[in-house]
């Protein structure tokens, strides 16, 4: 309702403005949806819903007085799932004001993910305002404000006392950012300095949705279950930040340096209570309830600096040398106070309460140093080339307590990794033909994570051709990437290939026919150890997909027809088919108005009973351009 009123207000204002002959274009109407099958899967993947929709709004006018122009651009305001509105106004040489509003519906409810128990239905709204004083002048002070809110219900799970329980979740996060600074431009020297402050307040409330828990069996002869379970969590994070860059130019040399630093500090408070029948193996006890309180503090200070020089050896031959360094320090402390109520040992003796107080600290240092050099030749005849080399050195230091996701071990220490990268790009453009290729080779001396490569190659090739007047346009893209770490005990090998061919034909100017084919193939293997047996196994992931698309657009005034269909079949680890159909008929009435009818359909089918939906969307839109 609120969204419809927003759209209606904008629509009425648009007509009010257009009555005064202002350049404006608007398309608005109503969309209906008809979904069968798993609607939650449809909402997770597409989420277009019934409702009023301003598909596009574009408005510009020159003005007199306090502003000399106003520009408004909006897309998909209303039924969403993603809406955006942008306004720019100002007066040349005096000020420039930009306002932005975005709204995203985020929905996720997948039947096969986390037993279907992790879901959310939330909305994120983001608002930005930026004001520049004396824009395009020698010194331009600016201030900006951003506000974002992420809120809505969801469901999650919580592991407690030998079982995990389905919880209802309510999340409300608000982020605010204020920034101020100045950019300056003295011709050969220019740059910018920004100082900002950001705060995030996050409140989460969790309550028991299903007392049974996921484990239907018993533990040591007892049914595990919860009668009540509530948790509240509040986190506030403050992040001051500084960002600056400075560039100086001479006729042949351009040098730029930058510095960014932020220091994020979060404070959290959690309270939880639960009652039921639970078990704790670390305590060797059953217990009938828990009361917990957690206070925490975490800090992340990150700074990054860079310096680069670009040298124009000739007008079309440039050389780059640069250095970049990043340092990140993360540390955290938490005091976890938990009272286990009515504990009983496994022999059924000594009923009493036990208090466990854990004070924990963690820290991590991460240093990244990168040196780079590149040579670029632009437009040497029909050729352009770029050759680059970089060396990245990673240095991680981790203290105990950090990363102890399951059990201690392989969680702390010092890890170092150096990656040498060679990349080359070349393109050839002559008349109606173009050919481009890029190749990148990364070599590392060690792996920090098991899926880190020791060697990686990536090759991309593109070819294009079009006839004069674009009667025929042909584009081919091939991409292959291969990475591996064949050390004993890792055996990581991943290969991904994707090819696309895109052909567009226009036998007569009003008609354009387009067809595309995509082939996707990916294989990845890495040795793993199964937890339940400690036996070695191989994790295999595979994608084997083909997509075929075809469509045409016919524009014979006042009628425009745009039709398309596609099919994607994947025979990989998750086999599925996606069929998509689109049709749009638009008819322009004389001069300023038009009407458009749209239909789109998505058929999605996995090889599980829950993994399928068919979704039709119909829309009628009116277009107006005075």
């Amino acid at each position, binding site marked *: 309702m609120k969204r419809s009123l927003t759209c209606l207000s904008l629509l009425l204002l648009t007509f009010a403005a257009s009555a005064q002959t202002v350049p404006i274009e608007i398309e608005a109407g109503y969309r209906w949806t008809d979904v069968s099958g798993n609607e939650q899967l449809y909402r997770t993947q597409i989420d277009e819903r019934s409702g009023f929709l301003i598909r596009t709004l574009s408005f510009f006018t020159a003005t007199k007085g306090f502003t000399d122009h106003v520009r408004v651009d909006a897309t998909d305001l209303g039924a969403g799932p993603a809406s955006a509105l942008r306004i720019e106004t100002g007066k040349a040489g005096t000020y420039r004001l930009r306002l932005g509003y975005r709204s995203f519906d985020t929905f996720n409810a997948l039947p096969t993910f986390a037993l279907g128990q992790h879901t959310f239905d939330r909305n994120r709204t983001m608002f930005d305002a930026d004001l520049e004083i004396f824009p395009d002048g020698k010194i331009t002070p600016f201030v900006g404000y951003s506000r974002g809110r992420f809120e809505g219900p969801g469901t*999650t799970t919580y592991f407690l006392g030998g079982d995990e329980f389905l919880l209802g979740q309510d999340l409300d996060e608000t982020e605010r950012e204020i920034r101020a600074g100045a950019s300056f431009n003295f011709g050969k020297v220019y740059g910018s300095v920004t100082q900002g402050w950001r705060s995030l307040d996050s409140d989460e409330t969790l309550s028991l949705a299903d007392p049974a828990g996921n484990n239907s069996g018993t533990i040591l002869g007892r049914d595990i279950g919860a009668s009540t379970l509530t948790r509240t969590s509040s986190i506030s994070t403050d992040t001051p930040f500084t960002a600056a860059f400075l560039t100086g130019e001479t006729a042949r040399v351009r040098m730029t340096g930058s510095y960014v630093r932020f220091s994020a500090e979060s404070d959290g408070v959690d309270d939880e209570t639960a009652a039921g029948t639970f078990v704790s193996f670390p305590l060797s006890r059953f217990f009938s309830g828990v009361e917990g309180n957690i206070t925490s503090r975490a800090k992340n200070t990150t700074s990054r600096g860079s310096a680069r020089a670009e040298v124009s050896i000739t007008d079309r031959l440039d050389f780059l040398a640069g250095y970049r360094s990043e340092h990140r320090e993360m540390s955290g402390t938490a005091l976890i106070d938990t009272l286990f109520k009515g504990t009983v040992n496994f022999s059924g003796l000594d009923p009493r309460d036990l208090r466990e107080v854990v004070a924990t600290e963690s820290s991590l240092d991460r240093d990244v140093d990168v040196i780079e050099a590149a040579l670029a030749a632009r437009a040497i005849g029909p050729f352009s080339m770029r050759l680059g080399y970089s060396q990245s050195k990673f240095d991680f230091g981790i203290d105990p307590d950090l990363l102890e996701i399951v059990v201690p071990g392989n969680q702390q220490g010092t890890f170092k990794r150096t990656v040498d990268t060679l990349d080359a790009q070349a393109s050839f453009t002559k008349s109606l033909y173009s050919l481009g290729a890029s190749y990148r080779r990364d070599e590392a001396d060690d792996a920090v994570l098991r899926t880190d490569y020791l060697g990686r190659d990536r090759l991309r090739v593109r070819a294009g051709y079009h006839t004069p007047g674009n009667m025929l346009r042909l584009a081919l893209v091939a991409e292959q990437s291969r990475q591996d770490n064949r050390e004993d005990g890792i055996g990581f090998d991943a290969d991904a290939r994707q090819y696309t061919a895109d052909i567009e034909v226009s036998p007569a100017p009003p008609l354009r026919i387009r067809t595309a084919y995509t082939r996707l193939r990916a294989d990845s293997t890495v040795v793993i150890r199964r937890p339940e047996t400690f036996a070695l196994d191989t994790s295999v992931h595979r994608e084997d997909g083909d997509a075929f698309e075809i469509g045409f657009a016919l524009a014979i005034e006042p009628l425009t027809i745009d039709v398309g269909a596609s099919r994607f079949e994947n025979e990989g680890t998750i086999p599925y088919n996606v069929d998509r159909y689109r049709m749009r008929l638009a008819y322009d009435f004389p001069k300023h108005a038009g009407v458009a009818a749209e239909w789109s359909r998505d058929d999605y089918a996995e090889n599980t009973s829950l993994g399928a939906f068919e979704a039709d969307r119909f829309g009628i839109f009116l277009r107006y351009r005075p």
Partner: protein
Amino acid sequence: MSYRSLLIGGVALLLILGASAGSAQECADCHEDQAKAFATNPHAKQVACAVCHGDGAAHIEGGGDTTKISVPRGFAGAETTCLTCHDRITDRRSHRMGAHANSPAVNCLSCHSIHHAEVPAALVRLPQTKLCASCHGTQAASTRNRPHPHRVVACATCHDPHARAGRENLRITAAGETVCVGCHTDKRGPYVFEHGGTALGEADCSSCHEPHGSSNPNQLKRARVAQLCLECHSPLTATTAGSQPPSFHNLNNPRYQNCTTCHVAIHGSNRSPQLLK
């Protein structure tokens, strides 16, 4: 009053204030439509026709002789017109050494059209879904065909088309963080207990997620969560980070095929070293 109401009020005020005037352009006698449209162009305030097209006197005297007027095209057109004003470098942007450095293969006018832009805000020739796809076909196909695409964002939400090559073509937040946490604020932290995949990986979020689109739930890189986790959490060598899950994690049980059913705080936690809450 919500900021949505403020926005509506602001738009109303600007529409009413703004609907009062137009502007005149040189060359409009013949190029009436272009001149009319140019009044709404971002260049209109500071750039006269002659800045890009040269002196039009001979063209006018020649009765509109097209050989006597300059029309910027391709690499040379961009070099001698666009870049005379727009060639500014920063630590992250460059028009000569960047990923889309001005060249015959890709140049300003490959993507921007001063007089025929379908997306007027930045004078972009076509909507991003079509424009970027004309070269980056494989990435566009991932976004278009996969069942779990990165919805509600356009290419330029995350990528800066004028950026330097490599990972620096990804935008960063005002504070200098990875672009992902600009929207996914709930994953930003800092946390007392960081997850190694995000803290140690070279690629941060993309250690586990496919950013353009994926066949797998939640845009993960693997079909099953346990598969993704165990690829790091199998410490068969002493030199890599990642602990071994204990033996009661029986992968034959559906509960343990979904690690995040218990380890819900997989992006980081302030409360649980095991990322359980």
